């Protein structure tokens, strides 16, 4: 039976669906009793990319990962890897390896033996096994620690062993379950870049599960945002961030200012929205097809807002408000403001100069404004 040639759903315009995805998830559903953990998910993953499944805990991302690994059997749908249907294939026969969140290193084996474990299951000759183990340990910079046991390693070193153990079999697909969650912040940043470097070097397709949007943004070529068992949006990190499709995505990935309103007019390239919370018409030149009178939300990222003491010349996208909180964060300063209508606003400004004598203070009345191209109109 030849697989159908249709491009899987879930791909929104903006991330060119290439013909023939390397990994195809087709209508996969998983229910536990009356709980639906994964709800009819269809997804295509390209060869050699890092794809992140991003979602809060309990959104079904880990269940989907476990279905890919073969630990869970999907209630419905199927998974194809490189054209092969994985239905009914046990984990030990899949061309897939996983790096567990807890790393799951064998405590009774040395680093070397842990890494060699997978190759020994495949009955690969001793000489080749030791060569590949050596190469892999070199790649993750653990060569000198080959004879150590897992408990003699630091968290970061254990993570490298887990990565080496999963990669040494040259899987078609590598699954990473919250790969950096157990590491402290500094190490996490370092490992993010190292993971990318290693991935580019070995060329294996990565599927990463994470709840950390920053991690997803840094690591991935594409992100699939999950909520309540469904993929709500897929796209490149910048597509997800700059053109979120729903309020959920806009709020989950980064922070956002949302204004609820109604479409009142549509002129050349602009959508004009009337909004009580803003107190002025809002113009947006990006977003959706919407009819007159539709209820919509205007989303603007905090860093795209300007703050000024004098009223800007444009009479739209301009909200008079008072600064209620200022948080200095070194590289940027976060402002919280309250508009006359009572709406809360969040603005972040980069600190470009070392000392800004003209900065705004708490309690000051200012104008918040933005360019029509900076906002996105959402219908759901």
């Amino acid at each position, binding site marked *: 039976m030849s697989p159908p040639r249709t491009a899987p759903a879930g791909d929104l315009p903006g991330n060119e669906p290439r013909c023939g995805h390397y990994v195809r998830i087709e209508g996969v559903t998983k229910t536990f009793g009356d709980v639906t953990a994964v709800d009819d998910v269809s997804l295509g993953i390209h060869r050699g990319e890092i794809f992140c499944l991003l979602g809060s805990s309990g959104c079904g991302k880990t269940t989907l990962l476990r279905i890919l690994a073969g*630990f869970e059997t999907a209630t419905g749908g199927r998974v194809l890897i490189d054209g092969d249907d994985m239905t009914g294939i046990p984990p*030990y026969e899949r061309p897939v390896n996983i790096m567990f969140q807890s790393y799951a290193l064998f405590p009774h084996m040395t680093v070397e033996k842990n890494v060699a474990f997978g190759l020994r299951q495949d009955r690969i000759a001793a000489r080749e096994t030791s060569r590949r183990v050596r190469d892999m340990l070199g790649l993750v910079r653990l060569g000198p620690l080959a004879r150590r046991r897992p408990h003699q390693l630091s968290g970061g070193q254990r993570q490298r062993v887990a990565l080496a*153990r999963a990669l040494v079999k040259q899987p078609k697909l590598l699954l990473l379950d919250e790969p950096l969650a157990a590491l402290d912040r500094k190490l996490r940043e370092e490992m993010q870049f190292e993971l990318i470097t290693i991935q580019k070097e070995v060329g294996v397709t990565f599927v990463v599960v994470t709840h950390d949007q920053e991690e997803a943004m840094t690591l991935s070529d594409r992100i699939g945002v999950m909520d309540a068992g469904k993929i709500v949006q897929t796209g490149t990190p910048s597509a997800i961030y700059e053109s979120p499709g729903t309020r959920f995505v806009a709020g989950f990935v980064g922070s956002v200012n949302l204004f609820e309103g109604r479409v009142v007019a549509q002129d050349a390239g602009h959508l004009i929205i009337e909004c009580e919370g803003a107190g002025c018409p809002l113009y947006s030149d990006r977003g959706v097809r919407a009819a007159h009178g539709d209820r919509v939300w205007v989303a603007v990222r905090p860093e795209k807002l300007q703050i000024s003491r004098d009223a800007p010349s444009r009479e739209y996208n301009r909200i008079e408000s008072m600064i209620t909180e200022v948080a200095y964060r070194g590289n940027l300063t976060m402002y919280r403001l309250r508009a006359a209508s009572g709406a809360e606003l969040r603005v972040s400004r980069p600190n470009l100069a070392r000392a800004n004598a003209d900065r705004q203070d708490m309690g000051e009345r200012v104008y918040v404004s933005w360019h029509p191209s900076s906002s996105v109109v959402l219908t759901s």
Partner: protein
Amino acid sequence: MRWRTFAIAVPYLWLLLFFLAPFAIVLKIALSEAMLARPPYAPLFEWGPDGSLAVRASLQNFLFLLRDDLYWKAYLNSARIALISTAFCLILGYPVAYGIARSSPTARTVLLMLVILPFWTSFLLRVYAWIGILKNNGPINNMLLAIGIIDEPITMMQTDFAVYVGIVYAYLPFMILPLFARLVRIDHTLLEAAADLGCRPLRAFLTVTLPLSLPGIVAGSLLVFIPAVGEFVIPALLGGPDTLMIGRVLWDEFFANRDWPVASAVAIAALFLLVIPITVFQRLRADQEGA
């Protein structure tokens, strides 16, 4: 700091009083000569009429143990019976412990309770119950006769078979409990990792579960082997006259022959034969912990 010293001192003092002191007494008797008296052995230390202290210690009794092959045979036979019983306990106990460790937490409590349940009845009564089960007109023989598999009852009582049944039955919980304690601590994701790396379930068991449960196997085996070697009640009640075990020899020396010095020597020798497996155990455990 003072409280810690105190807390450690109490059990040590206890051991000193109730283990080392009796041991010293037994050792003293073992080194003295037998005589018809009350107590039935010659004093080890004697004050001469001139006030000098005469020590009359001899290794006579230990040499006697070497000369008479009864003792060697009893020791070896005890070790053999204990070893085979331990093996059976391990074979029967491992799947039980594994099953309990893999069951749901609620089922686990019930199953563990069932393992411990026999301890609520006296050990002696439970061994007596086996006499009723195994005897010639007991339920097993009656059933087999009724079905027609056998024409005359199989003699099970007063054989080595009955001794094995008794020991395995009595000591099985001592195998199951430490095994369970170890198996329940093994992280299930390790087995998933093994499967993910291409390991079939049986191989995953052999390469991951089994090595990781080794400390439990060692602990359980020693808990069965050590008391089984010195077991007296089970061979006395279930075994035949030719079931030679060191516990019975010891009993006979003390109470039938009233030869306390030789009996004491038997006891001391048995103790040292047991020290060897304990040391092996400690060594293995130290290795595991170093791992």
